[in-house]
């Protein structure tokens, strides 16, 4: 009974090649079934080495203490918080794609949602490590939860750091649920295709006895929509609360009212950059994916990056202008210190990476050049890291009193922990590619059916997204 306005996707094909239901299933399901390509082993190896480095860094941190990091007064936050914010931000693309793009009926999300959701989960894992260990006593981290206890210790609810605990843990829980629930029909597909008994049993257990009956699908769709509704506020709230870690204070450069939406946009910006960083090589590694993650998908992701990149850049311009307009000596000094202070390089790197380079995405040819896009996505990832460096370090190292000024330099352990999380992230992404269907098979088949297959003449399924023949129009970007 709900007619939908026809999504615009027919103008831009979502699939390449001649598709059938069997082909969609086969192309995606055979990736985890077949032996892995040699490049997989190399990348997994790199990730595993990184993970070992991560473990080493953490063990040494626990043995010696926080002194092995470069943090000290006045810059007590350093790498730990920079990396925390960076990783949390990266996770946002997954949530945006799974929740908001679903509610916006953007059919192109179906090709990348599984992938981006996996990315979200691993990114949040990496993010969570940093504040956990930054507390110095991770073994009593449960004190952050309001558990009744005989010490009558209670968390400080007025602190945004405490809000973070709830925001991030909710975020992680919902992301995992969303990802896993979406996987259930596909795990059942894997079960049905499995040749070995062990694989059948494992997939059988994980797919909860899914038989694909109409009742199953009804429940599934309802739960999916509910989870999408739950996740939507999370896209805004998680990074808004992270931004409040800074904005609640009165430190110049932190006490900025635009921080919440500016952080959220930055998170989506960096998240989409990371999706591109991963999708482009994965398409090379697994050529079958190219039929589903088409150049149109890449183009849309690049456009989302351009749009969110401008919101971020608007934030920088706004900070510059209002720094001057405030006529407040500390705010004005902050702008000057960013431009010409000891960390000027970080600031200008940020402007270059996030402000200048993304402008290339205005050009359709560049949005269709995979190599350039890959390079741009890496540059944006670096730029977004510098953004957090600028926010954390530049604001802290010289605030109000010159007597309290200081310098910050990361140690080798800061770097090894950071690079270690990147290794862990790579390892997890490749494990994911190895064991789980990387794209949502059921959803792709569904969207393929609706858009290209399901209509007879003009009336087809009046019930759902009634498809229509491709318009006669031509021209424009495609």
């Amino acid at each position, binding site marked *: 009974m709900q007619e939908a306005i026809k999504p615009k996707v027919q103008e831009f094909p979502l699939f390449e090649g001649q598709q059938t239901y069997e082909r969609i299933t086969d192309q995606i399901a055979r990736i985890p079934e077949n032996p892995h390509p040699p490049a997989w082993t190399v990348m997994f190896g790199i990730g595993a080495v990184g993970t070992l480095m991560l473990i080493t860094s953490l063990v040494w941190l626990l043995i010696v203490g926080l002194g092995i990091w470069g943090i000290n007064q006045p810059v007590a936050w350093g790498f730990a918080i920079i990396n925390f914010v960076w990783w949390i931000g990266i996770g946002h693309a997954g949530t945006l794609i799974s929740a908001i793009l679903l509610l916006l009926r953007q059919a192109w999300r179906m090709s990348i949602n599984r992938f981006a959701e996996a990315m979200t989960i691993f990114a949040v894992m990496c993010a969570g490590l940093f504040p956990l260990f930054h507390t110095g006593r991770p073994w009593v981290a449960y004190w952050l939860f309001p558990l009744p206890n005989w010490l009558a210790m209670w968390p400080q609810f007025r602190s945004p750091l405490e809000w973070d605990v709830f925001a991030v843990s909710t975020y992680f829980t919902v992301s995992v649920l969303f990802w896993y629930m979406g996987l259930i029909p596909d795990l059942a597909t894997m079960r049905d295709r499995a040749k070995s008994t062990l694989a059948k049993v494992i997939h059988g257990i994980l797919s909860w006895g899914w038989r694909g009956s109409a009742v199953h699908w009804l429940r599934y769709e309802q739960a999916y929509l509910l989870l999408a509704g739950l996740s939507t506020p999370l896209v805004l709230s998680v990074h808004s609360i992270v931004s409040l870690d800074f*904005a609640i204070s009165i430190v110049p450069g932190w006490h900025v009212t635009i921080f919440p*939406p500016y952080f959220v946009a930055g998170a989506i910006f960096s998240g989409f950059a990371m999706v591109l960083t991963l999708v482009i090589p994965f398409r090379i590694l697994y050529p079958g994916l190219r039929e589903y993650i088409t150049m149109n998908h890449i183009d849309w992701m690049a456009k989302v990056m351009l749009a969110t990149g401008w919101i971020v850049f608007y934030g920088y311009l706004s900070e510059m*202008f209002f720094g001057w*307009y405030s006529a407040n000596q500390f705010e004005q000094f902050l702008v000057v210190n960013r431009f010409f202070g000891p960390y000027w390089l970080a600031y200008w790197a940020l402007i270059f990476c996030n402000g200048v380079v993304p402008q290339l995405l205005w050009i359709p040819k560049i949005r269709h050049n995979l190599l350039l896009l890959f390079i741009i996505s890496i540059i944006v990832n670096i730029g977004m890291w510098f953004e957090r460096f600028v926010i954390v370090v530049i604001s802290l190292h010289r605030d109000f009193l010159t007597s309290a000024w200081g310098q910050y330099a990361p140690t080798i352990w800061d770097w090894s922990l950071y690079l270690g999380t990147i290794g862990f992230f790579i390892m997890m992404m490749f494990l994911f590619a190895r064991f789980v269907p990387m794209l949502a098979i059921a959803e792709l088949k569904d969207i393929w059916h609706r858009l290209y297959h399901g209509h007879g003449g003009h009336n087809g399924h009046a019930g759902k997204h009634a498809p229509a023949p491709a318009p006669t129009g031509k021209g424009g970007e495609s």
Partner: protein
Amino acid sequence: MSHPASNEQQVRERIARGRSLALVVGIVGLAASLAGMFGIFGDPKLAFQGYHFGFFYWLLLGLGCLGMSLLAHATRGQWTLPLIRIWESGARAIPVVMLLYVPVLALGMKHVYEWMHTEHVAEDPVLQAKSPFFFWPADYTGTPVFFLVRFVFYAAVWFLMANFLWKKSLQQDQAKDPIEGEVLSRQRTGPASGMIVAFMLVFTLAMVDFGQSLMPHWFSTMYAVIMVVGGGFLALALAVYMVLQWRDLPPYTGKITYMPYRRDWGNFMFTLTVFWSYVSFSQLLITYSGNLYEFTQFYLRRNDGGWQYLAYLIVIFHFFVPFFLFLAPRTKKVVPQLLAGAILVLAIRTVDIFWQIKPFFAETLSISLFDITAFVGFGGLWFYFMLGFLNQRALLPQNEARLMEVAHGHS
């Protein structure tokens, strides 16, 4: 070509009638305001301040129309098609609002802008530091050259943008067939996206000039964001209201106001309700937590002297009520309910803008006669021109393949 003009006669007559009424109301309102500026009805200060409120409100609505048109052209959202001609016409009426502000620029800057008071600035290092933003290249005792230059610049930029969209849409209306129309429509997305960037940058400066500088010690980086969301919300509510009012008359009958469109409009109003609340609450929370007078003075003024009652109204009717109203699927199914929602938004947006602007001038809750005369004066003339522009062209985009599919698709 798909909507013969004869069918539209009734709507066009209504528009023409609305125009005549708007012109009369507008002239009466403006005449009263202008008379007030010369002290005929008491303190001219109140007349200028009320006039500024009227200016700000209708400028924001015009800019909301411009912003929504840009968004519609850039994203090519289906749901914007029935509304887009209304927004384009509204955007094209911005220069009228700008022109009507000349009396303040010529006669009453001192009554509106604190930074025009040389004696205050002389004692105040902060205002002195900010004065180049308004007076450059003169000093604060001179003419606010830079401010006036910007004023002309804004008017020019907004006019050029609105005119560009207007021309491009007209080209599509006059295209030879829907295929050419589709090509033209796609060609607009690039320039429209670029213009969104320019629009937001210019808008931010304008909001410093016409909003934040009224309390010159105060500033907020979020202000322009709150305002742009609010302006867009106002424009959306107005367009939805107009289209739904005319839902029984061609060309707005049938598929043009059918359920999928209404669902999208309702959902977008829901989104804007939430987003507006999100940015407004963020500004409040950050300001409250910092607790520095430089920032809190904005809220201290608005949370005292009776203004707090408007704030309560805004919290209830700008967040809680529309949140549940637009969330409910029923609102989008039942036309009068969506219409009521649009009216609610128009009303509470008006209260909100009043609460934003008037406390800059008054410590206690008050509405002067001139707040009303300027509001209806600016509004009358804005509507007069906007409806005139609307009547000049087809009421719906012509040669629009997507609209034709909707109109001639399954019944």
